[in-house]
């Protein structure tokens, strides 16, 4: 559930744009799929947020229109070294978190 692969540069210069890529391991069940005749209930990540040193840098509301194992790529400007905190919530009310460190030179 809480499996995510994050790609951020290890180091960056002050004020430079940082590209963040994240892939979360999640089936993003649409609710239309059938498994051996049984309907698989909908279960998709509907909320995603990313904070850097406590301040929100990116937020998204997702739906089943996002492919399984959702991938997100976004940018933010880093001023100080710190920690990226990722958080998400799915239809089963299951939360997931991930962290990544970033050093600003």
């Amino acid at each position, binding site marked *: 559930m809480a499996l995510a692969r994050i790609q951020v540069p290890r180091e960056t210069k002050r004020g430079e*744009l940082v590209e963040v*890529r994240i892939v979360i391991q999640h089936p*993003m*069940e*649409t609710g*239309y*799929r059938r498994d051996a005749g049984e309907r*698989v209930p909908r279960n998709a990540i509907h909320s995603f947020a990313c904070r850097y040193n406590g*301040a929100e*840098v*990116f*937020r*998204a*509301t*997702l*739906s*089943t*229109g*996002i*492919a*399984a194992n*959702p*991938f*997100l*790529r*976004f*940018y*933010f*400007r880093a001023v100080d070294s710190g920690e990226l905190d990722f958080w998400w919530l799915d239809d089963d009310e299951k939360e997931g978190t991930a962290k990544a460190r970033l050093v600003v030179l």
Partner: protein
Amino acid sequence: MKRRRFVGWSLAVIPLKVLGQANAHISTTDPLVFAITKGKPVNPGRVKLELPSLAENGHSVAMTVKVESPMSAADHVRAIHLISAKNPVREMATFYLGAHSGRAEVGSRIRLNGTQRMVAVAELSDGSFWSDAVMIEVREAACTDGG
């Protein structure tokens, strides 16, 4: 002769007016679009929705949306809404950005239920709306079977 010239001019002028008009490319009375814009005009341009023109299947299609914006405290993109014309869940995603984003660009992978028109609507800090629409041909739809 005068009448004939008038008709000729009308035919030449009207299509040009339609092209430059706001809203011509998007239905603002669509309840989903209306919920976002609250009836404000949606201008074409500034937004670039990048999708392949053809996808073998709709299970996972790479998507990038970019907005031309200086992303300063005074002028930035607040949100980008992604709307599908044919998916069972039409409101695919909303990305919330701010001046701290530095660049108004978001990438993801989306599911598509068949050949359709995809629309991206960007909401700017000054309250204006801009959008881009793209046709994508999907050979095998997601959702219908398998998942």
